[in-house]
């Protein structure tokens, strides 16, 4: 079972955990990516995420399906935030449940690693003196 969401409002970690919880799951791994207050030592004021929404949701679903195939996990919730985020807010929450913990860890890590490579979402860091689209330039 897969729950994919792209939200303009605060992500609900507890809802992700509840979605993946089941009586035959022994291990749940959850990853929460939060907005850091600095990049390479330079203070970040806030972040903005822009998404190609339909494709982002489709790519997130593909990743979850691949993780289920590869690692034999049972349930995955994958929620990503869009819009303006303050320091400390969650940009992404991924919860994975599996009968045994190794698969839950591996699948969760696969999801975030792959999401960062393939899902069309872009992060703009806002500094005191300007804004930068992350990773845009070589």
């Amino acid at each position, binding site marked *: 079972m897969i729950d994919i969401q792209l939200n303009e409002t605060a992500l609900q970690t507890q809802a992700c955990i509840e979605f993946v919880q089941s009586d035959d799951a022994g291990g749940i791994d959850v990853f929460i990516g939060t907005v850091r207050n600095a990049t390479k030592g330079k203070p970040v004021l806030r972040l903005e*995420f822009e998404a*190609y929404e339909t494709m982002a949701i489709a790519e997130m679903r593909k990743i979850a399906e691949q993780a289920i195939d590869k690692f034999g996990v049972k349930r995955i919730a994958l929620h990503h935030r869009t819009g303006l985020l303050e320091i400390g807010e969650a940009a992404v929450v991924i919860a994975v449940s599996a009968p045994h913990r190794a698969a839950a860890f591996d699948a969760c890590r696969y999801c975030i690693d792959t999401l960062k490579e393939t899902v069309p979402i872009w992060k703009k860091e806002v500094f005191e003196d300007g804004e930068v689209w992350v990773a845009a330039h070589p």
Partner: protein
Amino acid sequence: MKISLLSFGIAKEITGTRFMDVELPDSATIAALRAKLVEQFPGLAQLAAVKLAINGEYASETAVLNDSDEVALIPPVSGG
């Protein structure tokens, strides 16, 4: 024929708009579209790898476009 072009992130800043229509010869490829866009918006050439998607799927350089396709300019992603 005419395709719809979506631009995101830094690409949107370079093209100046999220949505635009682009006229192309029939059976134009992604490579042909890319060449046309880089000519029109030289800033695109300064970016780390820019991918293109057709109707929401990543497309290869040899993929052939059809009238009314939704094509997206996808600069390096940075979600998560």
